[in-house]
């Protein structure tokens, strides 16, 4: 079982260096929020880029266990995290905020003025 798993991993490693993190999207009146699960990732290892509506988040896994630790069971992946999302809404790119706490990266994408719900008064 192990051998098969390792062989597959080796075969794949040439093409795949990333694992897609678990994420959730929520919204309120003014913003969209994306919560991305990045356990054990340091702040300086995360890069966030938004280019033409394509949001890319890459997180480098720097966690290393000491060499003399013998692996008894390993479930976590070795690959870095990468999440690519195509945004289909207009966001205010200059006001995007990111916060990393307790292994969760929260991105706040403020909605652009033109997509916010607007109340129209009747004269």
């Amino acid at each position, binding site marked *: 079982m192990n051998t098969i798993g390792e062989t597959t991993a080796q075969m794949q490693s040439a093409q795949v260096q990333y694992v897609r993190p678990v994420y959730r999207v929520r919204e309120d009146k003014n913003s969209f929020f994306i919560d991305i699960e990045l356990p054990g990732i340091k702040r300086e290892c995360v890069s966030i880029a938004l280019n033409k509506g394509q949001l890319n988040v890459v997180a480098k896994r720097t966690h290393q266990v000491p060499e003399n630790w*013998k692996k008894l069971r390993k479930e976590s*992946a070795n690959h870095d995290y990468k999440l690519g999302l195509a945004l289909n809404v207009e966001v205010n790119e200059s006001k995007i905020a990111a916060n990393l706490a307790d292994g969760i990266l929260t991105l706040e994408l403020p909605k652009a003025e033109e997509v916010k719900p607007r109340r129209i008064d009747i004269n």
Partner: protein
Amino acid sequence: MKLIRYEYPTINDIDRLFGHTLPTLNRLGTVWDRLFDNYYHSTAPVTDLYEDDANYYVRVELPGVKREAVELSLENSVLTLGVKAQRTDESQALHYTVSRSISVPENVRQDTILAKLEEGVLMVTLPKAATTPSRVIEVK
């Protein structure tokens, strides 16, 4: 030496398998997540086990979990991790419980176990007790 119980593969494992090895399926991710969202939050968290000469180490990934929500207990050589968390989403309040049990080897010193939660990763250090030399019993 038996350290852990055999666990049947769960839907969680399958999900992870997809995340790892099938990049072309990435675009199905959202659908996949939604489909298994409920399962995801009630199954076992990602756990690594290590040992060195002095200790056993259990590393559990618990993103978004606060220290207060973690319950660790050791009973009859079984280490049980429980997490009760409440996500503070305005749109969807998620109550979920994570739990995982690990059979701990006999030679663990139960009084000096250390646990630390940092950046969504729980690290439990289980010190090994000095091994008692095996006694040869003479048959008369």
